[in-house]
Each structure stands twice: as structure tokens, then as C-alpha cells.
């Protein structure tokens, strides 16, 4: 292929800039020639070129399913993009312990929970628990940190109560179930509660989960967000740097009691 023009990157099927994309979708229309035409028109309507409806199937009850290949004229300017992540570079556990935790004058307290009715513990456990995930130790294994995992199905109210009790410096919440955007409701509620309790400023607030991105987290008023494949060190790097940046020592041991 010729040189890739990184300022105008297009999908690549089998030749540079051919713009090929595959898509599939269902339309709530009865199967047949008209349905296929609808799939084609929809693809054109979406700005795709030369749409090829390569498969059409009757799903019953007035639904039709399609597979389409088409070309998009769109491109992205790769050069100007930035990866959507909380910390530019990630440090290892030992590095974090040596360069940050050993130097802090008190152990930061980190609270973890999977909130709402969400019962998926595996994700938050992967981050918090000693054992960790895929051979990457969890926060409980970090020297110089006090990590407390509340587990799953924890209400936002309880998170706030426990954070106050334990004088948490960071709150790490997990959200796995996202159907009908229930996670947005849960996350917004927690952020509002902390705000209302005047606790937001002195808390590093982090969320993670398979459908979470840093960008989404920022939009929701969180300090950072972590998606699939996160390890404890990813979030630890961010948290310690953020704590240092905010000079959390001066928050004091009993910051909520003041």
C-alpha cells in the first residue's frame, strides 16, 4: 500500500483508503425485497457509499435482519487524537510504593464498591483484592495503602456513610450493568450525594467497568474512568498522583469531622 496519511485515516478493507466497513442491523419491517431496499436506503442515508446488502433474513414478527458492506467517505485525523485515559504512563506496583506511598506521611484510604443493585463483584475484586487479576496484585497488596472493598450491591448512601467513617481519600466504584443506562443514574446519584455532603472536594472519585471510559467518567463529574482490562496499577498510578497533586496530606486524618 502507499504511505498511510495519518491526518486522514480511513478504514482499510484490502487496499489503502478503500473505506470498507461491515455493518449489521435489524429493521422492524416485514422481510422481502422492500425490506432489502430499506436496508440499502438506510445505509445511503447514513452517508455510506456503494452499500452492498450481502445478507437478509426474516427474523419473524415483522423483523428483518441485514448484513451490509459499504464504503465510508469519512476519515479521522489520527495525529491530533489522544488516547482516552486517565494517566499518560502507568507505573508498576513497586514504583508506586517507592516513589509515592513510602513518601506520604499517612496511608491514603481507598474505598471500593460496586454500587446500586449491580452484583458483579469480579471487576471490583480484580482491582481491590489482594489476589488481583491476571497476575497483577490488587490494591490490598500495596504497602502504604489502606484498601477497603465493600463488595457489590452497595447503595450510594452506604458508600457515603462508610467513606465518612473511614475517612476515605479515594472512592473507587464499579458499574457493570449498563442496560437502559442504569449506571448513569447510579453514578450521577453518588456524585450528587458526595457533593451535597461537601465531601467531593476531598475525595478522588473514580469509576470503572466494561462500558466505562475516562471521557464518560469526566462527563459525569468523576476524576477518572477505567475500562476493560484495567489492572490495579493503572488506577493506583492515577490515584497517588492525583492525591499528591491535591496535597491530600493537608486534608488531615479526620477531614470530615472538621
Amino acid at each position: 500500500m502507499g504511505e498511510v496519511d495519518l491526518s486522514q485515516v480511513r478504514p482499510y478493507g484490502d487496499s489503502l483508503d478503500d473505506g470498507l466497513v461491515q455493518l449489521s442491523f435489524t429493521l422492524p419491517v416485514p422481510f422481502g425485497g422492500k425490506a432489502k431496499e430499506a436496508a440499502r436506503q438506510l445505509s445511503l442515508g447514513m452517508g455510506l457509499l456503494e452499500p452492498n446488502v450481502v445478507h437478509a433474513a426474516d427474523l419473524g414478527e415483522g423483523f428483518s435482519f441485514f448484513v451490509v458492506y459499504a464504503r465510508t467517505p469519512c476519515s479521522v485525523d489520527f495525529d491530533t487524537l489522544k488516547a482516552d485515559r486517565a494517566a499518560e504512563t502507568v507505573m508498576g506496583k513497586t514504583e508506586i510504593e517507592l516513589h509515592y506511598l513510602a513518601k506520604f506521611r499517612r496511608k491514603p484510604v481507598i474505598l471500593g464498591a460496586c454500587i446500586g443493585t449491580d452484583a458483579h463483584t469480579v471487576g471490583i475484586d480484580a482491582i481491590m483484592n489482594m489476589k488481583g487479576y491476571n497476575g497483577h496484585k490488587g490494591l490490598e497488596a500495596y504497602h502504604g495503602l489502606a484498601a477497603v472493598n465493600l463488595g457489590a450491591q452497595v447503595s450510594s448512601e452506604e458508600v457515603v456513610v462508610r467513606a465518612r467513617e473511614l475517612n476515605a481519600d479515594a472512592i473507587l466504584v464499579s458499574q457493570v450493568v449498563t442496560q437502559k443506562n442504569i449506571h448513569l443514574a447510579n453514578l450521577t446519584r453518588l456524585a450528587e450525594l458526595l457533593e451535597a455532603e461537601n465531601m467531593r472536594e476531598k475525595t478522588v472519585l473514580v469509576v470503572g467497568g466494561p462500558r466505562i471510559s475516562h471521557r464518560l467518567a469526566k462527563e459525569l463529574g468523576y476524576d477518572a474512568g477505567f475500562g476493560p482490562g484495567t489492572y490495579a496499577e493503572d488506577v493506583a498510578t492515577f490515584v497517588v498522583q492525583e492525591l499528591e497533586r491535591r496535597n491530600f496530606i493537608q486534608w488531615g486524618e479526620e477531614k470530615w469531622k472538621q
Partner: protein
Amino acid sequence: MRELARLKLDQDLVDTARTAAAKIVSDLKQHIDAHTTVSVERSALRLLGVDGVNRDGIPLPNVLVEQIQRRGKLGLGAAYWLGNAILASNLPVQPLAEAAGQGRLDITGLADQGEARVQKLVEELAVKALGEIASRRQERELLLRQLGEGPQPYLYVIVATGNIYEDVIQARAAVTQGADIIAVIRSTGQSLLDYVPYGPTTEGFGGTFATQENFRIMRQALDEAGSNAGRYIRLTNYCSGLCMPEIAVMGALERLDMMLNDSMYGIIFRDINMQRTFVDQYFSRLINAYAGIIINTGEDNYLTTADAVEEAHAVLASQFINEQFAFLSGMQPDQVGLGHAFEINPELEDGFLLELAQAQLVRQIFPGSPVKYMPPTKFMTGNIFRGQVQDALFNAASILTGQSIHLLGMLTEGIHTPLVMDRALSIENARYVFRTMRHLGEEISFRPGGRIETRAGQVLARAVTLLEEIAAAGLMQAIGRGVFAGIARTPSGGKGLDGVIAKEPGYYNPFPARMLAGRGSYGRG
């Protein structure tokens, strides 16, 4: 039909395992017999005819049971108080319940009508309720005879839109596509509600609320779709969580055919108190048994959390325990759908062989019981194209080992609850694999002493050891040590303990004895 390939297993070990499981369960029988729960009592009221909600939307069974509990009188059984109140007030059941629901009447505060009279009345109501359930059961048998059913493995798909009306549309489409069983998945969080929502609902998350009206709506839709498709379509829901027995009542009355109903799932995965769960599950299974409902146990869930290779013996041990709990409630073996899942890491060399060993092991150890075989979920990712392959191998394992209740894997399992096309693609996947491999299981045999047989023997041996440990420690204590799925729960921890009530002398509930009557027991205890 010829026999499928079989593994040589040590039958003595199987017997030892079953004996240990029977002991574990019978040790708990004492606790079960000595206690009732708010949900068991609400179930009794529901069976006796209490239905509806009060002005605040609180179900009347809850209002009544709370009233009785507040007065500290639940130890005698809600049935007793209802019967007494009916006689005392001279009101029929529902108006009485409504009056109590509006606070116009305290059902424990009325004049005592005498045990004999009360019981006579309640027994009449109970007979009516059980007759109702029995006719639902006959209806099912009739429809099955009239319409027939799809070949095994049955294709089992879920609908989970959160909206019962959308669910209906998707379920009907799934039937056109070839589904045999429709499971309506529950909204997250329902299991922790200590009441059952009421009426048709359209706002669930990751699933649709289980309500009696939702059951009815879906049952009707599936009867229609099944009659068009020319085969009986089974309906499944979750008889699980804090309202386990009440949902059993609803399912029995609305002719559900299957219920996810595990003796320990709520404890382990929902942190529901175990004293509560053991009592609830017993009563819920009495009802399911009586209604001819097939239960699906939840061992598959262990494998989504713990490692499928390392925890295989725990799955088997749990199946033995679930079996004995089911027998205790009068279930027939063919009502006990045991949970298993295709959850071995795709990165593992020869993982499929280990999976065959396990799937075949379960078939042979529980020959009279169907397995609810769950698809890969844990190792499903956003790579939907690889997902189709994982599901294809799962389908192959199922047809090779002759499973019966086959929960279809969705290519989007790692992403979202199924879209309408996901279900169609997964049905197509399964039908193709089943068709093209239809009689493969009959045409091969497993090498004696080979990797597959050896693995099966090891899992069995480890399960025996575990069961004997549990039998020695007691189930509650063993769960406290995290024997299942690596999750530990304590006897007094978790949700719902305040709903457990010690029975008092004179405790009255007309149902257990009637439900068990005439049923042979398969237990060993």
C-alpha cells in the same frame, strides 16, 4: 436410538457422594422445619387468595404479614390468622385483605374462632388453590400432547428488554426462529426486594420484573406463538431471591414450566441470609414440585466467578446437594434441571476435552435429570465473531453428550442483553450444529483410561471429598468457609434474616403436607 458414548465411572464413589449429600440436606431439615419466613407466609396467603396492592402500591400479602409480624404473631402462621379473620369478619378473602390493607382491620386483633373451625375453612381454601395448580399442570400436559415439542436439546433463549411488551414481541420472534423455551430475565435488584412488584411492568434494568401479570401476559403470548408454530413453548422465570416461594406460587398459578431455583444461589451470589434461604427454597420447591415445574439450579454461576477447571468438583458437589434438597421437597428426578456451564478458558489446551468430561459426567451421574447447560459467558468478549465460534463448540459439546435444556449462547454475551438479531443468529448456530452432528455422540466412544475418562474420575473423587467435608462441618459452616465459587457467607450475615421466624407450637400452614402427600421421595436421608 443408540446409546451415547459413556465414561467408565466408579459407582461406589457416586453412591458415597449421594449419601453425603443426603446427610448434608437432612441435617438442615431440622432448621427448615423449625422456621418459617415472611415470604413463606406471604406465599400461603397468596395461595389462599390474597392478591393486589394497597394505595401505596404495597402488595396485600406483605401488608398482612407485616401486620401479623409487628404483633409478634407470625410464629403461628399467617394462614391461621387469615382463616380466623375470615370467620370473625365474615368477609371473603380479598375484601378482607383489602380492608386490612387500608388499615381498617387488624387481622390478629379479631376474636378467636377456634383452631378446628379455622383449619377446616383454610383447608377448603387450600384444596381450591391446589386444584387450581393441578389444572394448570393438566393444561400443560394436554398442550404438550396436542402440540408436541421440539427435539432435545431444547433451545432456550432469554428475553430481557425490561419491558414486558417488548419482551413479548421478541419472544414471539424467537419462537418463529425456533426457540423451545423462553426465559424472561429479571431486572437487576428484584431478588433483593422483599415483595413482588404488581401488575404489568415496562421499566426494568437488564431484565423485566417478575410479576404475576407479566407471567400471565407472556404465558398467553407463548401459547399463541406455540400453537402457530405447532409446538409447546415452555416459559421460564426466576424463582429466586427474597421472594422465592411467592414466585413459585405465581408460576404455579400462571403455568410456568421451568424456574431458576437453586438452594444456595441467593446466599452466594446475592448475599441473602442463608437461614432465610434454606427455609424459602424448601417451600418454593414444594410448590414447584407440585406444579410439575422443572427447576434449573444455578451451578453454572460458580463457573462464571471461579475457575471452571479448578472448581469442577464444587459444581458436582453442589449438584448432589441441590438434588437432595429437591427430593426433600418431593421433586421427581426429571424435575431437577441441574446447572452446568461451558466456561473453560478458550486459551487452555484441550479445554474442550475437560468440558466433555464434565458434561458427560453430569449426564451419567444424574441420568434421570435434565441438565440446564449454560453457554460460555465469562470468556465472551466484545469480539462477537469469536463469540460465534465459542458458542458453536458449546453447541457441539451439548449434542455430543446428549443434553436436554440448552441455554443458547449469544455472540454479544460480553456486551449487552440480547438484541433481536442476536437471538436469531444463536438459534441458527445451534440448529446447524445439532443437525449436522445429530448422531455423532452415538458414533464415537471415549478411550478407556484416556484424558477424558481420567479427568471425569478425578472430578468425581474430589467432589466426594468435598461433600464429606461439608457433611462433617455442616452446610452453613462450610459456606462460611467459601467452598462454593470462592465466596464466603456467614449464617447471620446477608439480607433478610429479619424475615426468619421461629415456628411456635400450633404453627399452621396447610400446604406442605398436602403438597408432599402421595409423592415418593427420592432422598436418602
